[in-house]
């Protein structure tokens, strides 16, 4: 049952139809939650529940699908929400999605329902590193390149986003991952027949 998978294939995820549909629906969910499922705390940023979608897609499909979900989700949210395009933030969210979605890489037996204290600690660390890198480095850098100004406000927004997203992903994310793991455990006593 537990075949060894290389880290590379775990990062890329399996690109079958299911993954594609999963990413698409994840991106749609991300866009909807970004528009309606948030609580405004600062301009252009809010305590949004959309950040949970990265965690779910990451847990189910891997980091690259999670990154793509977040990037496209943010792009679609910009498109339907109508506040103009912020590619810097889309890319930032993509980077964040990649880090948050690393779950299958370190929790190798997530499919069988193993998600213990060690995995939770790694998860919290990846969330914090991902948020810091995405909104502390990538987004301000791209904002500077694309729009070449207003770094004061971007810093403010980035800090707000960093704290807001990290807390949403930790507070809601951990129970959610335990729930998914638990659901996986229930079905893991079945063996696959060839």
């Amino acid at each position, binding site marked *: 049952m537990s075949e060894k998978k290389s880290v590379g294939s775990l990062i890329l995820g399996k690109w079958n139809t299911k993954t*594609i549909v999963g990413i698409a629906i994840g991106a749609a969910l991300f866009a909807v939650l970004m528009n309606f499922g948030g609580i405004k705390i600062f301009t252009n940023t809010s305590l949004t529940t959309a950040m949970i979608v990265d965690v779910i897609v990451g847990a189910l499909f891997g980091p690259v699908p999670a990154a793509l979900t977040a990037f496209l989700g943010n792009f679609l949210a910009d498109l339907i929400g*109508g506040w103009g395009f912020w*590619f810097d933030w889309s890319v930032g969210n993509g980077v964040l999605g990649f880090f948050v979605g690393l779950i299958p890489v370190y929790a190798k037996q997530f499919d069988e329902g193993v998600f213990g204290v060690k995995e939770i600690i790694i998860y919290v660390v990846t969330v914090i590193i991902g948020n810091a890198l995405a909104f502390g480095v990538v987004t301000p850098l791209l904002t500077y390149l694309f729009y070449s100004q207003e770094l004061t406000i971007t810093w403010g927004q980035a800090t707000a986003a960093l704290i807001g997203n990290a807390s949403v992903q930790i507070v*809601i994310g951990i129970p959610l991952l335990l729930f998914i793991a638990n659901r996986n455990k229930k079905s893991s006593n079945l063996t696959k027949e060839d």
Partner: protein
Amino acid sequence: MENRLFINLKPGTTFLDRLTGKTKVRVFFVLIFLLIATWDIRFIAPLFILSIIGLVSIRPNAKKMTVALIVILLLNLFNLLLMFLVEPDYGLGVVGGSTVIFKITDFYIVTKETMWYFLVRLMKFMATFIFSLTFIQCITPSEMAAGLYSVKIPYKVCTIVSLAFRYIPDITRDFNNIRISLQARGLELDSKRTGIMTRLKQYILILAPLVITSFDRVGMVANAMDLRGFGKLKKRTYYAEHEDTKGDKIMAPIILILLALFLGIVACLIIWPPAFEVWCPWIK
């Protein structure tokens, strides 16, 4: 809530609607890149006027558009106000001068250059917004996928975009239904009466069923696509992509000109970086 969404599923009949997905996507992206690249009002002002012409030409629902435009205008003005509060003399760094019009306090001075910068910025952002509004109003999800495929994006990614587009209205409807039914059971979602932590907890109550129903669809949709042979071949064609109309033939050279303009602007910015980002008529 639904009327805040601008997704169009049926192609319309105006000039922009009748273009192929290929042309729509290319025009849109080249214009957006152009707007991101430049801070020069001599480019931004014509593009701004063009964006308004584009929006009017597709004859959108006037009431919906007015609401959207007012909301976005207020949002932008608020952002500018915030910038002013953080750094009132912003124009000094980006425009290159500081001609005081009047003083509020010693720190809060209103300068001609800052106001000029705010004008340029407002115009730039409004033009970006109006272009994206026009784009989203005149394109259908399948046309968008076809258009993205024509710019050499792998078709699996194009399918993700069009599928996501297709499911946004469904998921919005589910979100609304879940919210309303939870409110009917006595959940208080009014922002004035509940604190942030309570509201966050309440959003989890909405999120759980929404996530489960949304991801339940994945298996079904994936099976349906597999049955139709999705992903078996390297290339694909699109039903939504029709032959070039007269409009596409007119637009093809325009896209090339815009692309050349974009590359020219970027090259100029790299080769001769201007002393100040924003061009201003009274500063040499």
